[in-house]
């Protein structure tokens, strides 16, 4: 009897603990679709520009991240993200640094805002993200990094 009560109590407590856990987003390095490294002029610092495709995120599956490595020897995954932009589509391979060396430019497309604002289940259930037809250049300013 005593053992049964103890076992039941333990089971109950473990169920309470399990119930506390809600799944959260976890970085999956396999989702990285582009990783480019740029040198910062007159410095040993480098800038990592990571593009991930995390899939299913509503209308914005791509995430562009700027991660400065001020010592120039870090593992990108542990470097802090100092700037970021989510996008519906990214022009992979078209990322560039401007001539002055103080900006990273990446071409992307935003989502189809009107479609997602309609709240239509058909749109929300769409397997592919609905992107805007217009492309834009997103500029990431590097001037303040590694000072």
């Amino acid at each position, binding site marked *: *009897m*005593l053992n049964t*009560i*103890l076992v*039941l*109590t333990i089971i*109950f407590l473990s169920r*309470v*603990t399990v*119930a*506390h*856990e*809600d*799944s*959260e*987003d*976890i*970085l*999956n390095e396999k*989702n990285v679709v582009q990783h480019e490294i740029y040198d910062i002029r007159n410095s040993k610092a480098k800038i990592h520009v990571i593009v991930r495709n*995390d*899939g*299913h*995120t*509503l*209308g*914005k599956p791509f*995430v562009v*991240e700027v991660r400065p490595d001020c010592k120039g020897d870090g593992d990108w995954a542990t470097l*802090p*993200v*100092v*700037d*970021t*932009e*989510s996008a519906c589509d990214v022009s992979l391979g078209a990322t560039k640094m401007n001539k002055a060396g103080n900006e990273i430019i990446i071409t992307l497309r*935003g*989502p189809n*805002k*009107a479609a*997602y*604002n*309609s*709240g239509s*289940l058909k749109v*929300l*259930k769409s397997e592919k993200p609905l992107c805007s037809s217009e492309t834009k250049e997103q500029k990431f300013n590097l001037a303040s990094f590694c000072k």
Partner: protein
Amino acid sequence: MKQTIILLTILLLGACKQTADVYHQTAGPNDSSAQSVDGNNHDTNDSTQDSANDIAASDSNATTAPVKTKINFSFATKVEELAHDKAVKWDGCSKNAFVKGGYDSDTTCGKAYIHYPKFAQHLDKYFYTCVADAAKLIGFNKPENIFINHMGTYNDRDARGSNTLSMHAYARAIDIAYLNITDASGKKIRISSNVRDYKGINKKFYDEFRQCWKETMPKSCEKGGSESIGSIGIPSSALGGNSLHNDHIHLSFPKCAG
């Protein structure tokens, strides 16, 4: 000995139940703004008046407190069955609501699914208050209009990098990119949750907002990770962060909350 153990077990079970009950009875930081998501159509003038009357009635002891003439959120009457749970549509365009919003826009409003009844009730009861508290800290008193620039609510998918459902699959989460707040004098401010802007008033606002949101959660969520505290992307932020939330705040009503 046996009796003591049985008694302890009963007390333990009772304490757990009490924790849940207390949560459902606890008023928000400003309970006078609390309204129920009762399925009424809040978009009509009549129902808006009803809401105002309800607020006035619940606030009868505070004679000097202003009576709100608008509702916090406008939800549709129709309850819809989504893939995993029920939801109502939030009308981010309603002129009768303090809180409006749209997908990926500071000005274009839209509609979005919100879990019914739990998340809808929780947002309705606490969101405005937490924004108002945080806004006050940065010099904004009594927001007249809050426009949420969001990145979606309902999305039937797993959490990223996981094989278990995201809170978005239940419409229990909203990803907030920016908050556009207007006060009674017409003064406007845009609060960004992008990691690049996490300094100054943005930092002050979000630290306070997340602390407020965390306090609206029951004790059962205290050990549940960052889902219950409005997850943001900055690991060194006051309440910790999730590196996948670098350009938004993932505000959810996790399962641990009910």
